[in-house]
Every structure is written in C-alpha cells, then in structure tokens.
C-alpha cells in the first residue's frame, strides 16, 4: 500500500490535539478561578510561599527553549542539519534544567511539610490548602507534559540525525515544536496565577 502523505492534515491533527490539551488544563483553570474567588485572601497569603525567582527563571528557560525549537525548523528548511541538531539539543537541555529547578522547588516544599495530605497543610486555612493542592496538581500535570515533550523531541532529534526529517519533509519537527510551544504557553499562564498574584 502506498504511503499516504498529507502535511497539512498532520498539522491539522496536531492543532486539534492542542485544543484538547488546552481544554484539559482549562478544567483546572476553571477550578482555580472558582477557588480564587471563594478564598482570595488565603490564596494571596499562600502564594507568598512560592519562590518567584525560580518561577521567573523557569519562565525564561522555557521561552528560550521555545525559540530554539522554532529556530531548528528554519535550520532544517535551510538544510543545515548540524545547526538543527544543536538547537534541538539545547531545547532538550533547557527542558531538563526546568525539571531540575522544579525538583528542587518541590523538594524544598515537601521538606517544609507542605504537600497534599501533610499534617501541616491540614492545620492551615482551607483556602491555603486548596492553593497548594492546585499548585501541585497544575505544576505536576505541566511537568508531565514537559516529560512527554522531551520524549517527542528526542525522537525528532534522532530523525533529524538519520535524515528522516529533512528540508523536504519536516512536519514531525513542526508538530514537535507546536507541542513544545503549547507546554510553554501553559506555563506562561501558570506562572503569574501561582507565583505573581501575591
């Protein structure tokens, strides 16, 4: 059977998948909005607990990684395979930095006894408890998406290396890039909602 190829169709599929991802997080943003309205003062207090510096650092890391993956597409189009590989590798490295920061951030909080179900948390105000519940759930789900994105971009890396992704056929790289921008975009909303509204 001949291989059916339709780049526009593949991109359309990716965009529809991105819609579903946005709605997945949309449910969480809805829960956030409702509890923020119900417990605005306590959300305010709890947000002080988060380290805005690490949050900002991770934002910069993701923005840079989004830029590098976009540049990788241009590099492939210009048939500069080596540059494309370097750019995808930088993206992956940035993703790893993000996760390392997240690890220390979560680790520090867990060390302080702030985690769902902890004794300390049950003694806090209800709104603060919900804030930390949302914090772990939202950043956890986002972190999971970072890992999925890294797997996807690793596949892309090896396909560029083998020449399967080239100037004539690079829709997989584009879709990987689209997914990565989505992960970035969701963080752009998580960062102010969780870290900056203090």
């Amino acid at each position, binding site marked *: *059977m001949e291989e059916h190829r339709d780049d526009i169709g593949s991109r359309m599929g990716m965009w529809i998948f991105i819609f579903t991802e946005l709605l997945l997080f949309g449910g969480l943003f809805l829960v956030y909005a409702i509890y923020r309205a119900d417990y605005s003062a306590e959300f305010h207090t709890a947000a002080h607990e988060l380290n805005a510096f690490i949050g900002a650092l991770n934002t910069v890391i993701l923005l840079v990684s989004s830029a590098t993956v976009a540049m990788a597409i241009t590099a492939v189009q210009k048939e500069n395979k080596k540059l494309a590989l370097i750019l995808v590798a930088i993206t992956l490295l940035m993703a790893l930095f993000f996760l390392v920061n997240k690890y220390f951030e979560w680790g520090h909080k867990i060390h302080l006894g702030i985690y769902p179900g902890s004794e300390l948390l049950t003694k806090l105000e209800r709104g603060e408890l919900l804030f930390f519940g949302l914090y772990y759930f939202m950043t956890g789900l986002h972190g999971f998406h970072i890992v999925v994105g890294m797997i996807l971009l690793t596949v892309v890396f090896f396909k560029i290396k083998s020449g399967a992704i080239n100037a004539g056929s690079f829709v997989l790289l584009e879709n990987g890039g689209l997914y990565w921008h989505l992960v970035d975009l969701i963080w752009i909303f998580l960062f102010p909602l969780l870290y900056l509204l203090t």
Partner: protein
Amino acid sequence: METQNNQLNYIEDTQGRWGIFAWIFSTDHKRIGILYLISITTFFLLAALMGGLMRLELIAPGETIMDAQTYNGLFTVHGIIMIFLVVIPGLGAVFGNFFLPIMIGARDVAFPRLNLFSWWIYMAGAILAVYSQFAGDGPPDTGWTFYAPYSTESGTNVVAAVFAAFVLGFSSILTGLNFIVTIHRMRAPGMTWFKMPLFPWSLYATAWIQVLATPIVGITLMMIVAERLFQIGFFDPALGGDPILYQHLFWIYSHPAVYIMILPAMGVITEIIPTFAKKSIFGYKAIALSSVAIAAVGYFVWGHHMYTSGMSGTARWFFSFLTFIVAIPSAIKVFNWVATMYKGSIDARTPFLYAATFIFLFMIGGLTGLVLGSLATDVHVHDTSFVVAHFHYIIFGGMGFAFFAAIHYWWPKMFGKMYNERVANIAWLITFVGFNVLYFPLFVIGIQGMPRRYFDYLPEFHAGHLISTIGAFILLSGLFLMIINIYRAKKHVTPAGDNPWGGVTLEWQVPSPPPTLNFDEIPTITKSPYSFEK
C-alpha cells in the same frame, strides 16, 4: 503485489500476517471497525445480562436474589460498561471506521496507525474497567457518575474504574481527531461539504464534541484520583472543596456525551430512510446543519442535570431555556425523516423497521426529556425511575436501535452475506415489544414516586416492576435471536450482491465485501449523495 491486493477483499487480504495478528495489528479501517464490532458486542451482552439480573432482583419487593451492596455494584458496573465501552464509542467506532472513508471516497482514514492505536487504548481501558469489578475491595458502588464526595470516600475499587474511564476518553478523543482530519482532507474530488452524505456529517459534528468535551471529564476524573490518593481537597467540604463543582465539571462533558451517542445514530437513520423510501432525503442542509447545531447548543445545557443540587434561580432558567432550544434541531430531523417518507415508495425491509422504531422510541424519549428539562416538573420526577425510563428510551431506544438498524443495513456490505430476513423481522418485533414492556412502566411508577437506584421498593410499585421484569426477558430473548440470526448469515451460500437495498451512496458502488483499498480508482463526485433519479 499492488494489483493482486486490489482484487482481494479486506477479509481475505491478511497482508502477510498470521491468524489473529492480521486483525489486531491491521491498520485497515475496515478491520479496525470489525475489531470494535466484536469488542463492543461482547461488552454490550455482558452489561445487558447485568441489567437482566437487576430486573430479576426487582421482580418482587425485598431481597430477591442479591443484597443491596451487590445491587449497587451491578448498576454502577452496568452503567460504566454501557456508557464508556458501548454507547460512546458505539456507532462511530464500528460503522464510522468502516464506512466513513468509503462514503467520502477515500482509501482509509487520515491516520491509520493512530486509528489502530485508539483501539488498543480502548481495549486497555476496557480491561481496566473489567478489572475494577473483580480486584481490590469490591466493585465500585458510586453509580457511573462518580459523584463526589461519596466517590472520594467509598471503600470500593473506585480508582481503577475512574482511571478506566479516563483511558477510554483518550481513545475517544483520538478517534474524533482522526475523523475530523479525514473529513477535512480526504473527501473525493468534487465532494464539497454539501455533497457529503449525512452519516459523515453527523460523525463530523460528533467528532468535535469528542475532541472538545472529553478533556474536561478527563481532568475531572484525574482530580477524583488525586482526591483519593493525596487528599487534595478540591471536592471535599471538610477540606474547603465543593462537591457541586464536581457535578458541574462532570456534566460539562457528560451531557455533550449524550450527543456523542445520539448524533451518529441520527446519521444512520438519515442514510437508511432514503434508501427504503426510494427518495432523495428531504431537507439535506437542514439535517446537516442541525447536527452541528445540536453539537454546539448541547455544550451549554449541562446544568439541567443539577436543578435540585443547588444552583441560582438564574442559572436554572438559563439551562432550562437552552434545553428547550436544543430540542428544536432534534425535531427538525424528525420532521425531515417523516417528510422523506411522505409519498415515497416505502420498502419495509428489516433495516427500515429498525429505523422507523428509532423515530418512534426517540420521540417518546425526547418528549419525556422536556418533562425533565422543565424546572417545576423536574423537581417532582428527579432521581426517580422516570429518569431511568427517559434515558433508556433515548440511549437504548435511540442509539441502540440505530445500532441494530445499522448492523442490518450494512451487514451484507461488510461480509457479503445476507441474513435470514424473516427471522430478523421476528427478532425485531420481539425486541420492540420487549423494550416497551420493560421501560414504559418505569415512567408510570417514576411519576408515582419510585426512586432510581434502589434495590427494594414499597408494595404499591410491585405491578409496575413485575411487568418491567417480564419485558426485560422478552427483550433479552429478542436480542439473542437477533444476534444468532445475524451470526448465522455466514452459512448462506449465495452472496448478498453489491447493492441489495438499491442504495445510492458510495459504499453501495464498491464490491461486497469491499477490497482493501476500497476503490480501484477514486471516484469524482458530481451529484448530491441521495439522487435516486437516473
């Protein structure tokens, strides 16, 4: 090899794979459709038997054959299997996979491997769902709606069941995504949007609901899991959470899910009626666009499940108003089907009988839906067996009978063999009678105050329950007769022919069973899909 493949039909063409692997690893949309057909039929029979057991328990007041906890487990498992494994994938996964590409003149769906992957995810979810019934601390007893806070506290196996529903949702999303891209990108040359048959139109509207609504229930079910495993507090009033919020999030998906079930059913009926009335469909554009309208408005009516849960008066009349609005496009379809039959030369063969039954049962279900959609009457019948009767008329009488109609309509095309039509008609009569004897009494005792989900009842409801249980066994025997009859079609020696009903859509222009690549040459479309005039 290429030409040789063209001559083989999809059943003969194993593409070099051995035995069962030729099916479970095939990316052919027709084989995947058959995989879904077998899995869905199996789960349907399993859950139907559970329904039979529940009816047997209700044959007399008091404990008859099971205790209350077993009954709670049974109605939950019956609901989970029927909703998530049978009705939601149902028509789209079986007949959508098999016929969508053929009806729009394509060789396959846009992403064949993703399509096979969807079936594997479906099976993973199904195994998890069945596992949740037998492993751990007993079957979940929350009802298929998993309402918090009970679902966060119940000692039964809720996490596995909830996670199964999440996995099944993922499969549903991927199928929807695949169909949207297929319809956008792979229609045959000349097939404009308004030259596309109406079953694909209904699948298109459905696919958007699958893609846009399912993620909400996905994240909500994940919150239930997090609630149980980590006490995250979102739905637990003791931790500041709000159980009503769960109900909102749940119905934001699960009401549109009703349209995932019924829209493809309407699409099937729209295919069958013109073929047997020998007449072009009446109001083609109205039917096509009403599918889209139902999908769009159906997104904003979820609150009508929650009139008695605690909502502001404004929210309640708003949801009630929209519920009435969504009845309009549904009624448009009914009028168009009737108008198509008007002055047609109706050939009342088996598929037509099922299709006509669909219209009848769907109307009873739809009109009783308006009783539930009105604020004042809903308070009276909320959570009674009236609701049970209403949604079984819609889901079983609607989607179920459309599924039976579809299987009788397309079976000769799928397998090249005709079933015994006389036996099929007898099975239809038994099923139709059994269905009404089973569910109609539930309307009556529901209005009199019989609550739903109770394993026991007051003596005054005995007559209604007894009639209903008798109906259940008439219905079950009809179902078995129907299935055995269809299965025995394979023994027929004479082939059914390429076009046994005189249909005009593209699937009737290819051989029965269709060859692997569907068409030797992709057709060019110049006419409307339902032009019977030569």
